């Protein structure tokens, strides 16, 4: 009986001992004391919270694009104008060579002394190359689409177009005069046509130089 009584006392004593609070119940009660181990850890701010606050706000209304454009046409234009630039620079180099050879040919044929004709073939070749390159350069620009609206006003491009337009007129005149001058071999007026061909040649090269210069500088 003593043992049973003692066991009962022991059980009662065990039941009466204070237990650790169940966190999910007692922590919610206001003012409930908490042990240090039960206090929730303060949330650490994200590492970038101070240095990179969110910029995902919108203060302005959404707007539709203002310029309707054809993206494929833009890409095609850029390709053609890139080629235009490369071929144009090559044309300038050939035109320079043609002008030099043309002057040498005129000096050899008509300026002084006996005519040897040693620059004749070179001039014909460089002249043909110049005309071909100039035509190709012009066609690349003419066939480039213009999907974006043009801005009004006179700018570098306007001057470039004027200069190359003048060069085109000069080039056409040079082709006609050059062929006609060559056909006047033995005639007394051949030197006159040759001089005109020379002068227009310089004018044409000056126009080409202006056209290139407006873009480069």
């Amino acid at each position, binding site marked *: 009986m003593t043992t049973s009584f003692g066991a009962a006392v022991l059980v009662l004593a065990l039941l009466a001992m204070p237990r650790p609070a169940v966190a999910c119940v007692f922590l919610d009660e206001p003012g409930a004391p908490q042990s240090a181990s039960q206090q929730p850890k303060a949330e650490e701010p994200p590492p970038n919270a101070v240095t990179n606050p969110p*910029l995902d*706000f919108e*203060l*302005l209304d959404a707007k539709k694009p203002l*310029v309707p454009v054809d993206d494929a046409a833009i890409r095609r234009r850029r390709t053609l104008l890139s080629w235009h630039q490369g071929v144009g620079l090559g044309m300038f180099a050939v035109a320079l060579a043609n002008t030099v050879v043309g002057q040498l040919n005129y000096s050899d044929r008509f300026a002084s002394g006996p005519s040897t004709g040693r620059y004749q073939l070179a001039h014909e070749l460089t002249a043909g190359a110049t005309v071909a390159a100039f035509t190709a350069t012009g066609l690349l620009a003419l066939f480039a689409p213009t999907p974006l609206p*043009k801005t009004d006003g006179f*700018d570098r491009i306007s001057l470039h177009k004027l200069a190359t337009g003048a060069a085109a007129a000069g080039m056409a005149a040079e082709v006609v005069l050059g062929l006609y001058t060559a056909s006047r071999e033995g005639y007394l007026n051949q030197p006159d046509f040759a001089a005109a061909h020379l002068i227009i040649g310089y004018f044409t090269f000056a126009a080409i130089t202006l056209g290139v210069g407006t873009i480069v*500088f």
Partner: protein
Amino acid sequence: MLIALILASAAAAPGTWTVDSAQSALRYAVNHKLHKVDATSKEAEGKAVVRPDGTLMVEVRAPVASLKSGDCNRDEHMLEVMNVCAHPFVVFKGLGHLAHGDAQLQLQGQIELHGVKAPAPVSLSLEAQPDGSLRVKGSFDVSLDAHGIERPSLLFAKVDDACRIEVDLLLRGPK
């Protein structure tokens, strides 16, 4: 002195401040070996929200197509490389803190260019105007490569990667 205090107080008034597009400009400048290129837009729009505690949120944008350099071929090329179809605007957003009488403002910003967003911290100068508006000026550099922009070239030489963006905005305060 009294006027200066009044103007300084007006500079920090809480509310929504709106960019006066007609009196504002957004500029970019890039360098090439043969050219210095700069273009200006007079169609910038934006808002700045100032909270009572001085916290500031700013958003400014401008249509890419409105940036004019005076050279139509260059502007067309710029529209091509900027892919204006898909990304018609250049957008700046910023956060900062504005206190009474501040003449300088540091913004933690972000610039969206060519559809790519990149951090753009910027220092702005503030100047209160007699009519109560606020003139804001500042500049910062962006990397064209970082925004995936194909740098234009001339004579096989590309423009520099650094592009300077300048803002000169007139903000009109809450009514």
